[in-house]
């Protein structure tokens, strides 16, 4: 992953403009916990298409679709922070991109010793929840920051 310094010119332009149009390099900033500009960063990195932005009372959902059809919904608070990401489709999205700075915490959690066997993943830690399920060609999952969920949005509605 490129650091802020290494991304040079495209990154500086992005900083100045606010809403990013990221060229070929992928800045370190990514969805969860990031601000709304990281949604565009995700879209560009994944070569995804922007689908729509749905407005609910206490948040917005930006939907993007990756090549191959996986849909990624990024939930953004009124203050412009991405507090949840959900996905469903034939391919699992890149977790470092989706989780951003939370990827380290997630990585450590999946390394905890568990019995052998394939089953849905349920990581519930202070400050981070990651849940996945499905099977080949039909995956789904969500990652969210529990303390940032707006009133009235239940976790099982994040999809």
């Amino acid at each position, binding site marked *: *992953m490129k650091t802020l310094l290494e991304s040079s010119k495209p990154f500086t332009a992005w900083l100045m403009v606010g809403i990013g149009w990221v060229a070929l390099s992928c800045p370190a900033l990514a969805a969860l916990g990031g601000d709304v500009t990281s949604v565009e960063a995700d879209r560009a990195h994944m*070569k995804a298409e922007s689908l729509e932005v749905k407005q609910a009372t206490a948040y917005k959902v930006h939907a993007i679709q*990756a*090549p*191959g*059809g*996986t*849909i990624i919904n990024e939930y953004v608070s009124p203050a412009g922070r991405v507090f949840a990401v959900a996905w*469903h*489709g*034939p*391919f*699992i999205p*890149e*977790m*470092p991109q989706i989780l951003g700075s939370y*990827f380290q915490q997630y*990585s450590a959690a*999946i*390394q*905890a*010793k*568990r*019995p*052998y*066997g*394939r*089953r*849905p*993943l*349920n990581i*519930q830690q202070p400050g981070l929840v990651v*849940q*996945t*399920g*499905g*099977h*080949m*060609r*039909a*995956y*789904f*999952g*969500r990652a969210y920051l529990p303390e940032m969920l707006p009133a009235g949005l239940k*976790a*099982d*509605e*994040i*999809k």
Partner: protein
Amino acid sequence: MRKQFLVLILLGSLGLVVGCGGGSSSSSSDPSVAANVLPIAVDGGPPANQANGAIYPNGAFASATICAPGSSSNCVTVDHLLVDTGSYGLRVLESAIPSLNLPAVNASNGSAAYDCVSFVDMSFLWGPVEAASVTLGGETASNVPIQVVSNSTANIPTSCSGNTLSEDQNTQSTLGANGILGVGLEPADCGFLCDPSAGGTPPSPAYYTCAKLPCLPAFVDVANQVTNPVVAFSSADNNGVIVELPAVSGGSAATVKGSLIFGIGTETNNQLSNSATVFTLLCDSFTTIFDNTPLGITDPKHCSGPASFIDSGSNGLFFPDVNNSIPMCPNSTPFGDLSEFYCPTSLQNLSATNEDPNTTSTTKKTNFSVNNALNLFTAAPTDAAFGTLTGLNPPGFGFDWGLPFFYGVHVYSAIDGQTVSTPMGLPSPPWWAY
């Protein structure tokens, strides 16, 4: 010994005369077992892992003989392949077939194809697509693309590994098996989306070519994709599979032995039972009504919604605890982190109703039991089969009917694009029946 052998041959021949068309003779390896039968065992996994105290609970395993295409001498028999009706294609550890040199299979751009497969627990498998002759029981798929899971972790693209190699399950000890035998509903692991006719950017993580580094996503013609070996059998037993495992009485069993039967309605031993209900599917899933909550696809166009499915590769029953009443197990136990399993204070007998999403009048009530996973493992630390091992599929997700569903039930899985013609009037695959 010889007399028994002769008697078995005679019985085998009698079977041929009395039975229906299909004409398969007995297995080349064991004359007493029909050719379309592959023995499977829920036995805790490879002996080396068990010797280290690591049991694989509720994994059904089988062996395959893998040869270079066209060869009957350049072969290796690999044991402890996970029988997985939720995935498609044979994947085998390179470390299990060190002596085999298999030819590369190419992507549509002409370079050798590499496959990356993710699983829901965020593990992945990476390695080249190669052609092999695969024999399962007495059936052979004579030139079929398989995935060889590389020993090497070099050059794995980040869209596959997620920037960490810690979950690359390329050893017997990390995977818990020597490979995965994907015999599910689809004939190839990716299908149209990875075929060049899809156009646009190749999806990832899926197929790659590595002629220049870094490896880049690539399209692969469907015929060259990692293929469900069943559809490539030379016999007529290529339209589906039946998993037959006996019931597990009591809490658990040390080992449970059963069969993977190839073909539906093509031999005397694979006819659809009168008591089985056929479920057609939507997005390779059906609807499970649990706690008055329907868990199924809500948007067929995008295949979104809390889809429910049957999957022998899941090692428990995983479902959303809609009423939030079942406690989870602790994350620190002698068996590791069990926080994905349920730990009720006592055995709970529950039921759900499975429903055909296309014909909602077709339903079947299905009972199941939920027991305390920590207590189950503590009471029987060397047992492999647990009929009441259950866990969480988070609320908002569907019902995952894993291996406990199969104990004591014949489960039929008919493959997309194939034909099941006996008995007459069956719907076109894909479908499940039980």
